[in-house]
Structure formats: structure tokens, C-alpha cells
């Protein structure tokens, strides 16, 4: 019986180069697309589309975001508020904090309204009314950017 010489068997090493190449490619990709900006979005809200809704050139100095779902619930500061009164209470608190602890006036604050496309327009007006009562002046109605014309094609 012939016995193989075990002493000269070489160490088998997998070639790791392609895997490391791919992994570095992936890391480079994710590093480039990572976005640390604090964007307030909520999956319960589907924004209405508009071709004119282009992202603002500069961020707002003092933004304040209120979401409105299609069922008429207000989402503010991570809380689910079901009535205008509870929204008002939360906004009163916010406005007091802005007035006492910052040098900004309420007229400088931009209230960003992220309302669902199926929400009632009257509820959006309720948000605006409530904010107006508390001396907020600037409003931004948010929509999602659309590549196609949302008003239909001109003939």
C-alpha cells in the first residue's frame, strides 16, 4: 500500500481579495449615501404630489413640524394627538419655551405642515388657525416632489 507523504501538504487558503474588494465597494457606497440630517418624516403620512414642491435651498432657522394623518390625527413631537385642543395645549407649551428660552420671536418660526393627501383640507386650516391664535405667522405646506405634471398635460 502506498502511503502519501503528509508532510508536504500545503496550507489551503481561500483568496480573500475579491470579497474584500466588494466589501470596500459596499462601504464606500453606504458612506456616500448616508444622510445624518434630521428629517422629520412619518410613514403614516403620504404627502400630496406637486411638480413645484422642490426642496428648500436653505434649512429653516426654527422649524416646527406638525403631521396630519388621513384619519384626522395630529402628530406632533412624536405624540399622537386626536383633538385640536390637545394640539393647542402642546403648541402653547412649545411657544412658551420659544419665548422664554430663545431670542427668537414666534413670527420667525416656520410651522411645517405635513398633511396626508387624503386628509380634510379643513383640518389643515384648523392647524393654521390654532397656530395663528398663538402668533405663529410662517407656514410651509409640504408636498412630495413629482417629476410628472400633477395638473395634467397641456394640450
Amino acid at each position, binding site marked *: 500500500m502506498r502511503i502519501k507523504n503528509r508532510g508536504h501538504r500545503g496550507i489551503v487558503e481561500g483568496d*480573500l481579495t475579491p470579497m*474584500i474588494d466588494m*466589501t*470596500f465597494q*459596499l*462601504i464606500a457606497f*453606504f*458612506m456616500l*449615501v*448616508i*444622510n445624518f*440630517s434630521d*428629517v422629520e*418624516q412619518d410613514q403614516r403620512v403620504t*404627502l*400630496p*404630489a*406637486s*411638480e*413645484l*414642491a*422642490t*426642496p*428648500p435651498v436653505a434649512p429653516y432657522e426654527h422649524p416646527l413640524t406638525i403631521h*396630519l394623518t388621513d384619519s384626522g390625527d395630529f402628530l406632533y413631537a412624536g405624540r399622537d394627538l386626536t383633538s385640536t385642543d390637545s394640539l393647542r395645549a402642546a403648541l402653547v407649551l412649545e411657544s412658551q419655551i420659544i419665548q422664554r428660552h430663545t431670542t427668537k420671536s414666534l*413670527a420667525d418660526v*416656520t410651522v*411645517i405642515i405635513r*398633511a*396626508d*393627501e*387624503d*386628509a*380634510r*383640507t*379643513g383640518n*389643515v*386650516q*384648523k392647524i*393654521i*388657525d390654532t397656530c*395663528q*391664535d398663538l*402668533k405663529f*405667522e*410662517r*407656514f*410651509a*405646506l*409640504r*408636498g*412630495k*416632489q413629482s417629476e410628472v*405634471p*400633477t*395638473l*395634467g398635460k*397641456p394640450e
Partner: protein
Amino acid sequence: MKIRNTEHREHIVLQMTPMIDIVFQLLVFFVFTFKIVLPEGDFNIRMPASAGSSAQPSETPLLKVKLVAGADRELARIQLGDQPYASFLDLQNAIRGMVDDSGGPGTTDQEVEIDADFDLRYQYAINAMTAITGYQENGVQHKLIERVRFAPLKE
């Protein structure tokens, strides 16, 4: 002169394991922090609380756009003043005619008030905003009337 025997020099093995460990850690971090941010934009409106009750007299009369909701909260009628329009595109063309006659786009101090029914789907309100505030032609945005506000809420 003594020459070293180069044959017996130790073979240096590069330790790949720690590097691959770290690289995978980085990859996992980037994968988990990855979030897709859809492009969003705003329609900016300035609505001080006093504007509703005691609007200062303007040289140009206030234009009123009325949006009437029908069954299922869909849009039933669009009116600019007393003139009904079949679509938002017609409304936009009418406003383009008006603004271009009075000094070119973006230079008008014309103000428009949107009077929408409470139950109307918000998408239609945004469509009206799109029709009033501007239009897009060959990828370039042109502004029409920037001073837009909502009519006071009717209960």
C-alpha cells in the same frame, strides 16, 4: 564580509482576520443607518392672525379661488371669482394670462385666497396652490402669484 542566508528568512503572513472583522462592523453599521429620504418641498405662505380680520387695502383686488367638494370628498367645482373652470390647468392658464398682463411673472403683489370646503381632499388644495403659485416649463420653474392664503375656517 558576512552574507546572511536569505533562504531561511521567515515568511511574513498578513493577518487579515481583524481587518475583515472591522470592515464587516462598518458595513453592518452603514446598512442599519441607511434610510431612503424622498425629496420633499414646501409651499411657503405667510398668514399673520390679523390678516383675516383687518386686511390692509391692496392696490389689486383679492382674487378668490373656491374649491367645492362633491360626493366622496372629491372635487366638484373650481371657481376663480365667479368664473367656473373645468380643471386646474384651465385655472393656471387663466392666472398666467392675468399675471403676464400686469407686469410679468413674479413681480405681482396680487394676493389669492383659497376657499376650500372642509371635507375636500387635501391633494386638491395642493393642486390649487400649484396652479396659482407657478408652473414648470422645459424643466424651469416660473413663479406666478406667491401671496396665497386660506380663507378663514367656516364651521
